[in-house]
């Protein structure tokens, strides 16, 4: 089993969730109000009042064979809006 960790702007969370659902994952979890630092510089919650939001952390546990579909679904979004993803090993409890 694989664990996928995605970090992206809260504004695109719905788009990302749709993309990974379409890839066929059995479930996912979303943590909002994540701040951080990446290529696009520092992201804080200071502009939250404007609807701009901070980052979100999306966690997906799925079978290894789904990873390419998830990657393919996210590539266009990450290319346009930024965001990063990482994969690691896991097993069900």
């Amino acid at each position: 089993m694989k664990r996928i960790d995605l970090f992206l702007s809260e504004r695109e969370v719905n788009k990302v969730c749709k993309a990974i659902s379409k890839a066929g994952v059995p479930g996912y979890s979303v943590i909002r109000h994540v701040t951080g630092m990446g290529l696009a510089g520092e992201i804080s919650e200071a502009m939250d009042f404007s609807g701009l939001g901070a980052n979100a952390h999306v966690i997906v546990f799925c079978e290894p064979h789904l990873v390419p579909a998830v990657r393919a679904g996210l590539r266009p979004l990450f290319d346009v809006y930024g965001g990063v993803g990482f994969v690691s090993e896991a097993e069900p409890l």
Partner: protein
Amino acid sequence: MQSSLILQNLVSAPVLFFFLGVLAVLVGSDLEIPSPLPKLFSLYLLLAIGFKGGLELAHSGLGSQVLLTIGAAVLMSLLVPISSFLILRTRMDGYNAAAIAASYGSISAVTFITAQSFLNVLHLDFNGFMVAALALMESPAIVVGVLLAKLAGQSGDSLKGAKAGGLRWREVLQEAFLNGSVFLLIGSLVIGYLVTSFSPAGLEKMDPFTEKLFYGALCFFLLDMGIVAAQRLRDLRRAGPFLIGFAVLAPLLHAGVGLGISRLLGLSQGDSLLFMVLCASASYIAVPAAMRMTVPQANPSLYISSALGVTFPFNVVVGIPLYMALIQRFVPLS
């Protein structure tokens, strides 16, 4: 006269709380208004300002001066982004120029509210329909901004524009007209209008919420705006002197044009100030949220920092009393 206006403005509670927020950041205090509390205040202010605007629009009716003024305001929100784009494009890429231009074509509701409070202190009247103008200036500027970005993208200097493909009109209109802030403002305006017209008994019960609480909530929100604006100052250094210069001179220019139009329309002193402030202010609520989605190639820290870090404090601290001084010189007391 002018210096007494500036002082009058400076020692008002909202402006002082703004400075307190700025000071907190400058001296390194850990004072913060944790999320989502600032959102509570921004939702509240939009709801209250919309409702009160609808109420006064129902009282004033939709006469020809009302429609002319609103029309002129919408026109400004279409022209300002174009002229701003042409200026900005000389020194930066098309996407950033377009996104910043959209900001300056749109408005800042908090600057507007602060100008209203200022007028209250001077005992000058203003018309409720100005809020309708405010509400209708957000969306056109966003649409123009996206069109400019699209144009700039096609003319070849795109960063990652190749991927963006054709203009997604549905998404652009959604961001322009259904953006949460725009939607709440216009919706509250319509509700204020309907309640005033058909069920005026309800007005009195809304009054403690939308009217009495307003000034204090504005102080609280400006405290947060001061913190956020000061945090933005750092980003600004990276933005360079050209953008900083633009962020100070553009409001002056737009306020000047606004003053001319106010004279043409024969607006009162109070309405003239509000009209000038609408032209002079730049959006840091609706527009950044919309640009992030529709022009992702632009760097948010540029358009947010110039609108929120420079133009907003400039208007609130220096602009409002300065525009008032000009009005006292050029607009007759009606």
